C-alpha cells in the first residue's frame, strides 16, 4: 500500500487508495510504474516547488498558477488535466523551461532551471526536453524527414549521416510514418502531422517529453494512434512523458493524472502502468471528484 496525498495547499485534498502492486487489479490489468532495480520508485526527474505565475496585461493581472508543487519520476507518464484556463499550459511551459516562474522553482535533473539564462535554456531545450503542441508544430517548407531532424540541424549536427540518421529512421518507424519521409507537412493528415511532431520531440532522446494537448485537434482514432506512439516510447524506451489534455481518454494512457483547477493541483489519480488504456476507471474517478 502506498498512501499518498496530493499537494499541500489544495482546497480539496484527495487521498486516494493507490492500486496495490501485488493485489489483483481491481479494474484492469496493470503493470507497475517504473522502479529502480532495488524496487524503489524512480527518483524524481522533474520537480516543481511552490510555482506561481502571474501575467500582467495592461492593468489586468492574471494568476495562472498559484503555488504548484509536484514531481515527475523518471520513466513516468503523467497527465495534467483540468478545465480551460486552469493553468495547464502555463505549468507545462515552466516545466520545460520555455518561460520563467514568478516565484517558486523548477528542478530538472537536479538542477534549478527556473532562472536560467537564455543560452542555458536553449541548450536545455535542445538536449533535454522535447515539445509537442496542439497544432502547427511543423515547419511547412521542410519535409517530414527534415522536420524530424530539425533539432539536430539546429544543434549544428548533420542528421544525414551515421548514428543520427539511424535515430531519425527509428523514430519514423516508432510513429509509423515509414514511406512518408519526403512528404511536406501539408501533404499529411492532421494526425500524421502530430505524429511527426512526436517523432521530432523524441529524436533527441530527451529526458522529458512535454506535450500540450497533442490530440486536441484529432479525432478519436487518430488521437489514439498518437497516444499509442507516446505510450510505446514510454513503455518500451523508458521515456518520461508529461501530457496536458482535456480528454479523459487521453489521460487514461498515463500512469498518474494530476488534476489542476484555478492554478492549483486539486487532485491526483494514480492509474499505474496499464496495457489496456480503458478510460472508464479514470472517468468514474473524475466523476467522484466532480469533474
Amino acid at each position, binding site marked *: 500500500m502506498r498512501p499518498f496525498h496530493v499537494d499541500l495547499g489544495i482546497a480539496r485534498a484527495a487521498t486516494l487508495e493507490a492500486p496495490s502492486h501485488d493485489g489483483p487489479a481491481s479494474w484492469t490489468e496493470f503493470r507497475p510504474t517504473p522502479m529502480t532495480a532495488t524496487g524503489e520508485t524512480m527518483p524524481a526527474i522533474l520537480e516543481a516547488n511552490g510555482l506561481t505565475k502571474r501575467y500582467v496585461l495592461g492593468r489586468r493581472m492574471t494568476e495562472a498558477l498559484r503555488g504548484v508543487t509536484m514531481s515527475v519520476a523518471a520513466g513516468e507518464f503523467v497527465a495534467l488535466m483540468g478545465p480551460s484556463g486552469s493553468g495547464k499550459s502555463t505549468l507545462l511551459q515552466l516545466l520545460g523551461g*520555455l*518561460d520563467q516562474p514568478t516565484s517558486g522553482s523548477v528542478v530538472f535533473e537536479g538542477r534549478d532551471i527556473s532562472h536560467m539564462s537564455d543560452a542555458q535554456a*536553449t541548450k536545455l*531545450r535542445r538536449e533535454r526536453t522535447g515539445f509537442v503542441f496542439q497544432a*502547427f508544430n511543423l515547419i*511547412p*517548407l521542410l519535409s517530414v524527414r527534415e522536420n524530424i531532424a530539425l*533539432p539536430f540541424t*539546429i544543434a549544428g549536427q548533420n542528421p544525414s549521416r551515421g548514428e543520427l540518421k539511424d535515430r531519425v529512421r527509428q523514430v519514423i518507424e516508432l510513429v509509423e510514418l515509414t514511406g512518408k519521409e519526403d512528404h511536406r507537412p501539408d501533404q499529411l493528415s492532421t494526425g500524421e502531422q502530430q505524429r511527426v511532431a512526436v517523432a521530432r520531440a523524441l529524436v533527441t532522446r530527451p529526458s522529458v517529453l512535454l506535450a500540450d494537448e497533442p490530440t486536441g485537434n484529432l479525432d478519436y482514432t487518430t488521437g489514439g494512434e498518437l497516444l499509442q506512439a507516446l505510450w510505446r516510447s514510454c513503455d518500451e524506451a523508458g521515456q518520461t512523458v508529461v501530457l496536458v489534455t482535456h480528454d479523459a481518454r487521453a489521460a487514461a494512457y498515463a500512469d498518474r493524472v494530476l488534476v489542476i483547477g484555478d492554478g492549483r493541483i486539486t487532485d491526483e489519480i494514480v492509474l499505474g502502468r496499464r496495457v489496456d488504456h480503458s478510460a472508464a476507471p479514470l472517468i468514474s474517478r473524475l466523476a467522484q471528484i466532480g469533474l
Partner: protein
Amino acid sequence: MGLNRLAWRMLAARPLRTLLTMVGIGLGVGVLAASLTLGAALDRSVDRTVSDIVGRADLRVSAFLESGLSDAALETVRSTEGVATTAATLEHRTFLSTATGDPQAAVTVLGVDPATYPALHDLTVVSGTGFAASDVQVALISQELARHDGYAVGSQLSILGAGGEQQLRVVGILAGSGGVSGSDRVALVPISVARQAFALAGASRIDIQVAAGVDPATVSARLAQRMAEPYVLSSPADIAAGLRASSASFQGTAALIAAIVLFVGAFLIVNTLSMTVGERAREVGLLRMAGSTRGQVMRFVFAGALVLGVVGSAFGVILGTAFAYALAHTVSAATGVTAIVTGIDPQSALMAGAVGLGITILGAIEPALRAARITPFEALRARFDLPSVRRSRLGWIAAVFVLVGAMALVAWPPAIAGSGAERALAVYAVLLVATLLTPFFLRPLARLLGLPVALLLRLEERLARGSLARDRSRTTLTLGSLVVGLAMVVALGWSAQAARASANAWLQDVIPGDEVVSSIRPIGPDEGVRDALRQLPGVARVTPIGTFDLAYRGYRVDAAAVVGADFLADGRLHAVTGDRDAALRGLDAGGTVIVPAAVAARLGLHVGDTMRVALAAANHVDLRVSAIVERSIPATSGEAVLVSWADATQSLGVAGADAFAVRFTPDATAADRANLDATATQYALEANPVERIQGAVADALARVFGLFDVLAIIAVIVAALGIVNTLTMGVLERIRELGVLRAIGMSRGQAFRMVVVEAAVLGIVGAVLGSVVGLVVGAVMLVLGGGFAPVVGVPWLPIEIAVVLGLGLPILASIYPSRMAARVSIVEALQFE
C-alpha cells in the same frame, strides 16, 4: 465600428511600416518635384536669356571680327528682301570717369537706334523717361549701375571715350540689368553718340524683324548669299535650342531617375497595402459578416492609401526643395546654364504631389479588390495567413505599373520630350519586364547563390530560402524594387564609363602626341620654341597647333591650323568619307580643309564642297573639303575643322601656335619627360600629359554622374525600406513557427541570423539580377543615346558598387526584423494563431 477608423487603425497598428512607406513615397515625390522644379527653372532661365539677348528680333547678325560690322554690311542687311525692321547696336565696354562714378568697374555702353531699338527690345523704365527722338548726349542706365554708383535721373554721366570724356545726362533708369545679358552695369545711348564717343563706324550687331509671312530661314539664306563680310547669324530658336541642348540630357536623366524612384516607391505602396489587407483579412471578414458592402471594404483600403499618399507626398515636396537645390547647383556647374531655384516651384510641387497621390491610389486598386473578395467565412478561419487573400496577382500589378508609366509620361518635362522620353520609356519597359521575370529566377538563383551561405549557416539558409518562396508576389515586388534600383546604379555607372571612355578615345584618336604643351599667347614660327622642344632628348616629334575661329555663312566655326604630315605620321584621325592619307598629305600645301563629321552635318558640307570663308574687308578664301573625319581636335564649343598652317597664317590671320603636341620616342625616360616639362616652363608654357587632360574630362563627367548616382542610390534606399517591411511581415507571419523553432532549441542568435540570411540571399540575388538588368538598361541607354561604342568595356566598378549596395543595404534593413525575430517570446509566439 466606423470604416475610416478601421483604415486609420490598420496604419497605426504597424507604425514602422506606415512610416517607411510614407518615407518611400516621399523620396519618390521628392526626386520628381526636384526634377520638375529644375526643368521649370531651366525654362525660365532660357527664356530670360533669349529675351535678354535678342528681344523680339527674329534674327541677329553679329560681327565676327572685333572691328564690327561695317556701314556697308548694315546697309546690305537693311536692303535684304524680307527684312522689315532692323536695329543696329554698337556695344563697347568702357569705364566711367572718376568724377561721376566708380572708375574701377567697367560699364557696357550700348549705342542703340532710339527709333527702332524699342520696337525689338523691351525697355522697362522705372524712373525718368525713355529716349525722345531729338535727344542727344543722353543715357538710360540700368538700375544696378544707378544703385551701385549713386546715379539718379538728371545726374551727369561721364564716360571715357576715344577722344576723352563724354558728358551724358541720365534721363531714365531701366529695370534690373536693362534687358542686357552678361552685364548689369549698362548705359544705353543713341548709336550716333556711341559712334562719335568711341570713334567707330558701323555696329556690333544688327537685329532683324522679318516681314509678316516671311520665313526667317529664307532671310538667312539670302543673307548668306549677299553678305561679303564675315558675320555670325543667330536666331532666338537657335539660342534657346543651344541652351536647352546643353542641359537637356542632364534634365532627361534626372527625370528618368525620378520615374525610377517612383516606380520603386509604387512597389513599396502595393506591398504595404497588400500586407495590410492580408493581416486584416479576418477583420474585413467580420465586417462583411456584419453587413459591410464590398464597396465599403474597398473604400477603407483607399482611405488608408490616401493617408499614406497625402502625408508621403507632403513630405516629398519638402524633400524635393533640398534635392532641387542640389540639382540646380550641379546643372549650373556642369553645363553653364544657370538654373535659379529659390524654393520649390508651386506648379512642380503640385504636379509631383498629384503624381505621388495618383500612384498611391493606383497601387491601392489591387489590394482593395482583393479585400473586397474576402468572404464573411474568412473571418471564421483560424489561421493567420489566408493564402487566397494574401497573395496579390502579378497581372494586376503589371497593369498598375503600365499606368504608372503612362502617368510618368504625362509629367515628363516637355522641354526634353524628344529623345529623352523614348529612352526613358525603353528603360522603364526593360525594368518592368525584368521585375515580372524575377519570380522565375528567384528560386534557382537563390539556391545557387545561397550555396556559399549554406556552407556556413545551413539551417538559416534553408529556412531563409523557404521564407522567400512563401509569398511569390511579395518577394517579387521586394526583389524587383531592389533589382531596379541596383540596375540603375549599374546602368548609370556604365553610361559614365562610356562617356569617359569615348572622351578618352577621342583624345587618343586626335591628339598626335603624349603631351600637350600649351601657351596663353600665340607663338610664331620664328620664335624657335618648336625647335627647342624638338631637340630635347627623348622627343620624337613636336607639332604646332593653332586654334582660332572662322566665319562661314553666318556660322562661327572652330578651326585649328595643323601640320597634316605630322598627323599622318602619327596615325591620328579616322576618315568617314574621303581618303584620310591623301587629305592629310595634301593639307599642308593649302587650299583644303578637313571637317569633323559633327560639323559637316551642322554646316551641310560634303567631301569636294567648297567652304567659302569670309574675311575682313569683304575678302574671302575658298577651302575645298578634302575629307570628313570621325572626330577632330576639341575646341571651344565643339570640334575644330583642320586647315593648313599656310592658309592659317597667310589668309586667316593666325599669328602662331597656342599648343604643341609632343610625341616621345618609345625609349624616352621619365627624366626626359621631366626635362620637357622644365623646358616648357622656361618658355612660359604649360605641359599637360594627355592623361591629365583625360583626367580633367573625367572629373567633369564625375561631377554630373556623381549626382545621378546619388539619385539612383535613393531608389536603392526606397527598395531597402521595402525590404524592412517585407522582412518584418515575414517575421510576424512566422511568429508561431519561430516559437516552435525556439521551443525545440533554436537560439536567439540563430533566429536573428535566419532573418539576416534571408536579407542576404535577397541581396545577393538582387545584386546579380540588378547587374544583369543594369547591363541591359545601360545598353539601351547607350544605344538610344548614340554612345554605344566598342570602347565601352564591362562596367566592373559599378557592378562592384551594386554588389556592395545589394548586399549591404538589405542586411542593414534586416537589423530591425531580425532583432524582432530574436526577441520573440516563445510562450507568446505559441499562443499566436
